[in-house]
């Protein structure tokens, strides 16, 4: 596929192939994205669902949180579609 694939046939524990580097960067970026997403969703759903913090999380609060997380993921999809699928 690329000129670097030859290198993987001569493996050395200290050598990092371009392929490995790409994968490492990709997973680092994915982790970063996931952390940021979690942080945002946490803020949004705390605001929506935990309006009066009690001594424990109530059943209705927990179910609100599940719905909120699902809807936030759905909203991300809707926004991305609206921006890039060029409808209307």
């Amino acid at each position, binding site marked *: 596929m690329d000129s*670097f694939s030859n290198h993987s046939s001569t493996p050395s524990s200290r050598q990092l*192939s371009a392929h490995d580097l790409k994968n490492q*960067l990709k997973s680092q970026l994915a982790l970063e994205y996931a952390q940021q997403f979690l942080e945002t969703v946490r803020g949004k759903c705390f605001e929506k669902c935990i309006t009066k913090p009690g001594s424990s999380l109530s059943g209705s609060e927990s179910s*609100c949180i599940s*719905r909120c997380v*699902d*809807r936030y993921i759905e*909203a991300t999809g809707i*926004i991305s579609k*609206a921006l890039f699928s060029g409808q209307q």
Partner: protein
Amino acid sequence: MDLSEINSPDMQKFYSEEQQRAMVNEMVAKLTSECWDKCITGTPGNKFSSSESNCLSNCAQRYVEMTMLIMKRFQSMQ
């Protein structure tokens, strides 16, 4: 890997593709946050009402439109 390969054309291409992807993700995340606040006023339900999902779509598209307008406005000031 050879250190010079970190800046090889292949890696440069990879970096700019990933940068592009990250920018797109960032924009979607920002708009989702803004539009969520504007459009989802009640407690989240089991599904979005059609007015909520329309509002989200419209919100994203109007944001882009607004960006264009603001850029034009700035350009006209120069």
